[in-house]
């Protein structure tokens, strides 16, 4: 190659007056690497085909003929809306028809484009009433708007004859939540609240098999749980996609900053105790089989800038439950200033302990048998729990001195249930199965309401600086 080039170069300086023309050799060598691009194109098209097949395998959606198609709209296309859409794209038998979001320039566009990529013909809307007017054949609406919009959106959709899946927290006010329960009853339409752990196979397994049937925990005496989150900067937005101020105002936001970080504002959201805590405190109610009798709580805006944060960044709450087998004290904490040990719920009984979370990485279901409890051999043999790993102190470790008053460490078993799907998929599937009449809701409006009362009262207890008692009728509509 370069040998030939040497010749041509040698020619050039020798005849300085003459501008060299492009000859055949120049063209051949000039284009000599183009075939590599052709090869690249071929490899790329193979790769794209492979990716497309994979995608299709994951999303049988409308292709499957054996399930009735459900026409669905997404109301609220922010981060949570995107999470739900991603999970729904894996559920067969859904046809997306519309996406509604006031951030037309960004969120709405993104979700519409995502759905179009999956061959769903969707229309974008800014106003939910316009969507309900125009999209006549919708069967269901999935709502993931800010909490203070939930009641209005849910009630309008129910009254338009649609089934509704509404994200938790059901509402930022108890009046709002109550009106949603009433609307669901009056319209006879389904209303599922997005406490997705209610449909998580591991949670269902632990409750039905381990707590109810095998009674591995014995009498539950205390519960504790937490969701600790590391400090993270407030959400921003690309300046050129900012929503005009008049549209923000029309939908109840003072500024773009507030629109993006609504969870921190009073009157819009409920703060971390509601965003994070309600998922887990809902499990307290479920596993203990009752709502609490009292709550006391301490919390405050200890860390974040009060100019852009109104709700408490740190909350510690103690509930008292009166269950048929006795009093249960349940602690919960959430802090947004340190993410250590993440999130889990820990149910402690006189025979065993269950540490559980939604995650497959951290606390995916650990059971500890207390040393004095009856043997679990039967349940190990039946496969209900894994074979134990003994928690022994190694004799070699001379530093460790076992105090005689210290309890012997319990055996560690694992809960043999994993979820490979996105966290929200089972709960959404349960909703769409119910829409087809093939299932009952795992978290209907009444359950969501009980949970909302339990959690929203924490903020009230912090404000009141005193122990608040619940009456049984507080949880009923």
């Amino acid at each position, binding site marked *: *190659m*370069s*040998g030939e*080039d*040497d010749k041509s170069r040698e020619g050039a300086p020798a005849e*300085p*007056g*003459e*501008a*060299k*023309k*492009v000859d055949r050799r*120049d*063209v051949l*060598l*000039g*284009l*000599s*690497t*183009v075939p*590599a*691009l052709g090869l*690249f194109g071929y490899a*790329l098209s193979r790769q*794209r085909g492979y990716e497309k097949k994979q995608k299709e395998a994951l999303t049988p959606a409308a292709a499957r003929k054996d399930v009735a198609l459900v026409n669905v709209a997404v109301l609220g296309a922010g981060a949570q809306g995107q999470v739900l859409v991603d999970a729904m794209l894996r559920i067969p038998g859904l046809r997306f028809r519309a996406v509604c979001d006031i951030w037309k320039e960004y969120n709405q566009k*993104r979700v519409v*484009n*995502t759905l179009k*990529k999956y061959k769903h013909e969707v229309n974008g809307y800014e106003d939910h009433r316009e969507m309900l007017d125009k999209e006549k054949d919708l069967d269901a609406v999935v709502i993931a708007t800010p909490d203070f919009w939930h009641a209005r959106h849910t009630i309008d959709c129910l009254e338009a004859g649609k089934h509704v899946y509404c994200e938790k927290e059901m509402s930022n006010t108890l009046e709002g939540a109550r009106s949603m329960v009433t609307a669901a009853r009056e319209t006879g339409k389904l209303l599922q609240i997005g406490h997705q752990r209610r449909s998580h196979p591991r949670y269902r397994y632990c409750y039905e098999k381990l707590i109810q049937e095998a009674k591995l925990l014995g009498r539950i005496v205390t519960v504790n749980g937490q969701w600790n989150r590391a400090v993270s*900067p407030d959400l*921003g*937005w*690309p*300046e*050129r996609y900012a929503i005009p101020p008049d549209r923000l105002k029309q939908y109840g936001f003072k500024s773009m900053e507030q629109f993006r970080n609504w969870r921190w504002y009073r009157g819009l959201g409920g703060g971390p105790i509601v965003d994070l805590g309600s998922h887990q405190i809902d499990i307290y109610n479920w596993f203990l089989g009752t709502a609490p009798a009292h709550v006391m709580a301490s919390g405050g805006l200890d860390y974040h800038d009060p100019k852009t944060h109104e709700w408490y960044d740190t909350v510690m709450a103690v509930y008292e439950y009166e269950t048929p087998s006795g009093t249960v004290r349940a602690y919960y904490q959430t802090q947004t200033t340190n993410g250590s040990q993440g999130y889990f719920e820990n149910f402690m009984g006189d025979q065993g302990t269950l540490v559980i979370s939604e995650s497959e990485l951290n606390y995916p279901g650990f059971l500890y048998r207390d040393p004095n409890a009856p043997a679990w051999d039967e349940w190990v043999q039946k496969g209900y729990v894994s074979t134990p790993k003994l928690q022994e102190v190694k004799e070699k470790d001379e530093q460790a001195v076992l105090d005689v008053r210290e309890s012997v460490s319990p055996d560690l078993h694992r809960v043999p249930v994993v979820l490979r799907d996105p966290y929200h998929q089972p709960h959404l599937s349960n909703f769409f199965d119910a829409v087809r009449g093939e299932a009952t809701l795992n978290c209907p409006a009444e359950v969501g309401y009980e949970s909302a009362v339990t959690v929203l009262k924490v903020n009230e207890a912090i404000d009141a600086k005193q122990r608040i008692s619940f009456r049984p009728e507080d949880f009923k509509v």
Partner: protein
Amino acid sequence: MEEGRLSRLQMTSVVVLRILIGWHFLYEGVAKLTKPDWSAAGFLKQARGPLADLFHGMAANPNLLEIVNPLNMWGLTLIGLGLVLGCFTRTAAASGILIVLLYYLCNPPFVGYFYSLPTEGSYLIVNKNLVELGALAVVLVTGSGRVAGLDRIIHRLLRKPPRPAEA
């Protein structure tokens, strides 16, 4: 320069090296362009080392990401095309060096720093980014596009006739 002239085998190796690097850049670019929600934010957030704060700041600034993302996607793609085709080879190689240097600085395997994502090898100061950077430097200085590549044609067409005064 005369004794530095490359043999045919040497030049062929450089051209092959150029195509390999170009292919890598091209696919890195195309793969990002075809992912609707790709963003550099995730990579930047993982930044370690002396310049970590700068990269974290970029990740947290949506306005800046609006510029960084397309710049990176299209930069990679165009550099890749340039290297494969030997078109504006030296500009492509120089830009490639710049972009790889940024990746390198984002997660430099310096003593005492570690990357939170698992990597497939063991690195001490030198990692594959730095090797690719070095390879691009070879491509930059050998001007192989003028031997085998579109630069050969472009160069011929654009070359000004030398001034008679100099002759």
